[in-house]
């Protein structure tokens, strides 16, 4: 291939690298939001490429709700040790000690206490003015209109009516006092692009993305992994071992598994193409009310 042509993946790759370099070159105290999922794996891989052979110019921040899959935490620790990166883990210890859990609280309040609040606190405390995240515009309707460099006010809130126009690759990173940026270098990637790129570059991901026999219980039509003994199992609930995998990873009680036999990357990709259910479907949080994601983002959810 040397007609100086770039495939769509190589174009997306170079564009994402450009965005990360803009952050590093022009933003005060940047941070990379590392949520351990496949998008974060791609994000970290791109960040390394952007600055190679120099070290990463920003730390990683993981918001740990204490309800993440055990395998996610193990993968996170192995990946970060391997890369020699600076990882900051943030938990709302007060709420965790209080026993905040996703069963007794509604998804909204749970997200606010264990995700949104500790995220905002960490950003404020460290004085991070630009947080790089792995969100994609194809994930949810409200995300289709968000900028790549998205402005947040002093309370980390998003105002869809006050977004800066984004032209060419001229990203305006200037900030008024108090404000900060969320930067989404994967904005133009789709779920399929992410998988194709993982395959192309052989990027390691959490094994939960591949099918295996796992203990699950069915709650309101969603298959939930019995990841530890905190999951309340009623007398009528049956724990079954089934071959399942996850299309998206978050808090285990809130993330639905799908029945699958895909144990290799090509099989996962094959399933992704055939899938007729969009990936956030497995997440309970988007469904509570119409426009749920938009409301959460206005509040400061990533």
């Amino acid at each position: 291939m040397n007609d100086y042509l770039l495939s769509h993946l190589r174009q997306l790759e170079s564009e994402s690298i450009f965005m990360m370099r803009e952050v590093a070159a022009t933003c005060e105290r940047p941070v990379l939001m590392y949520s351990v999922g496949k998008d974060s794996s791609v994000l970290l891989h791109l960040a390394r490429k952007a600055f190679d052979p120099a070290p990463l110019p920003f730390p990683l921040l993981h918001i740990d709700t204490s309800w993440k899959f055990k395998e996610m935490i193990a993968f996170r620790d192995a990946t970060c040790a391997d890369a020699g990166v600076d990882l900051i883990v943030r938990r709302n210890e007060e709420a965790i000690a209080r026993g905040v859990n996703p069963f007794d609280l509604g998804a909204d309040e749970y997200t606010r206490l264990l995700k949104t609040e500790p995220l905002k606190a960490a950003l404020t405390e460290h004085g991070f003015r630009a947080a790089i995240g792995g969100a994609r515009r194809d994930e949810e309707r409200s995300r289709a209109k968000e900028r790549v460099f998205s402005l947040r006010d002093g309370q980390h809130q998003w105002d869809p009516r006050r977004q800066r126009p984004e032209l060419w690759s001229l990203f305006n990173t200037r900030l008024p006092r108090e404000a900060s940026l969320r930067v989404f270098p994967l904005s133009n990637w789709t779920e399929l692009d992410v998988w194709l790129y993982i395959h192309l570059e052989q990027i390691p991901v959490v094994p939960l993305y591949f099918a295996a026999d796992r203990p699950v219980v069915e709650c309101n039509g969603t298959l939930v992994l019995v990841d530890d003994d905190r999951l309340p199992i009623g007398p009528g609930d049956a724990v079954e071992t089934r071959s399942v995998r996850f299309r998206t990873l978050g808090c285990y009680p809130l993330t639905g598994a799908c029945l699958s036999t895909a144990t290799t990357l090509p099989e996962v990709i094959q399933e992704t193409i055939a899938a007729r259910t969009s990936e956030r479907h497995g997440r309970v949080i988007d469904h509570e009310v119409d426009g749920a994601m938009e409301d959460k983002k206005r509040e400061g959810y990533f």
Partner: protein
Amino acid sequence: MASSSAEAWIERHQQRDLLRFLTAGSVDDGKSTLIGRLLFDTQNLFDDQLAALDSTPDLALLTDGLKAEREQGITIDVAWRYFSTDRRKFIICDVPGHEQYTRNMVTGASHCDLAVILVDARHGVTDQTRRHSLVVSLMGIGHVVVAVNKMDLVDYDEDTYRRVCKEFTEFSARLEVSDVHFIPLSAKDGENVVRPSERMPWFEGASLLRYLESVHIASDRNLIDLRFPVQTVLRAEPDFRGYAGTVASGTLRAGDEVAVLPSGLKARVATVRDPAGEADVVFAGQAAVVTLDTDVDVSRGDVLARPANVPLCTQELEVMVVWMGEEPLRPGAAYLLQHGTNLVPATVMSIQYRTRVRTLRRESDVDALEMNEVGRIHLRMLRPLAVDPYTRNRSTGGLIFIDRSSFDTVGAAMIRDVQPLTSPPPPPAVDAAESQVSRDERCRRLGQDPLTIWLTGLPKSGKSTIAVGVERRLLDEGFASLVLDGSTLRSSLAHDLGFRPQDRREHCRRLANVARLANDAGMITIVAMVSPHADDRELARTIVGAERFVLVHCDAPLETCEARDDSGAFAAARAGEIEEFTGISAPFEVPESADLVLDTAGEPAAAGAIRVVDLVRPRIALDPR
């Protein structure tokens, strides 16, 4: 799918290319329905997205994003949609059609290779069609598809379609759109969107999707003019120093000679890296890292180019601007310009005209550009930028305006004219003819013995005010003089210079030479110039001649100068936007042997001017006064 065929499928899909296109049209033209149809018929919609809709799929509802918009039933911003086929990945930039949202369309268009302009077959070319076409032309989109929609409502009539095509062709001749393609379709019924229409057998062309899959865009890229804007400098142990950036245009390989702009220093490329590591060549669109064989000064904002093919380095520009700010653009207003990886303060010098988007008519005598208005303006920057015309290079020909207090993006502009606006000086005569007028004769005619009064001091210390005060007073007393103001001459005599020490020295050298020429012609010269370096002032003294050189230091404390500044320059310097700003980020060397020190903070300028004239009067007057 067997696993080997899965691998083959994956490999094929990893190699697909990318087309970004814009869809322009109003709610009534059925634009949302068209996009919904493209997604639906190429099966890029998921079941739960469909389930979220009413049972009878209103395709338009699929593409409305924000809650507020759903409530109002309109789209108010740029929305991005993604779909792919076996041949290409597509990014749709969906922009609304109403007039007040020209800014959104411009924003979307800046990312696109192609535009689909929807026309309602019943109404033909409307004001809105004209508006959309103008924006497409302005934004340099080379490929246009005119989708003549709602053919179902005109009974799929060929004559109606032909009429619309003719109308559009006539109108678009006035625009800079090279490749126009027409397709008759019905988004509602899916005719000619994805599948070819059986109801329009008279149409022999491909369906919209087929066309989008096959349109050739690779040759739109500029692979000729190397432009590599440096984003950041990467340093690694033990002694790696690489310049990271994305190749804006052209190609670059190890061994190539490059010029660093604006300094003009030259070096040879040692290595190039693409995202996969060290490479033979990097080219337009690739993120890259470049190392050089010599240790030249390169930093963010610099551009690498071939020495024989460089962009113009200029401090003045003619641009077409699309205004997006709530506050109108006015002459005299100052903004930050972001161009490539550069951020530079600039002032709007004048508005040449406004183009009415509806009629394409030009209106001169305009004192402001309101939001969504388009016009041609003249800009002056505080530092030179390395620019190309937008039509030649979208990356180095586009720029955005940033408001200096809110930091909002308030405008976008395309560089039109990159000719130096001030004509270059004629080449010097090799053998100067000997003058037949003697110095004495000139002095007697003008009644004065000329000299140069050199005013030095911090920015805003009052040099220019003193200079014009002195000029006035000299004239009142019968003396002829000329003021050379270092700042204003930056737009002409020194338009190619910045603020680095070597630029300042060159600026001094030029002004001192002009001062000397004027002195030789009998004129008294008053130079007002920061001239912060003692060495440079010494250079000026040598050029002018020590016996005719009077150095005056306008001495005001930094705080006073800063408090006086209404241009925002000090604030910008404090914020780090202006580098090498005397008093903030560059030194001012206080003269040790000034002929006169004026307290320009405590003393009124008029009094200062009198003291200067009192000092020089005995030396300039031929007759004792």
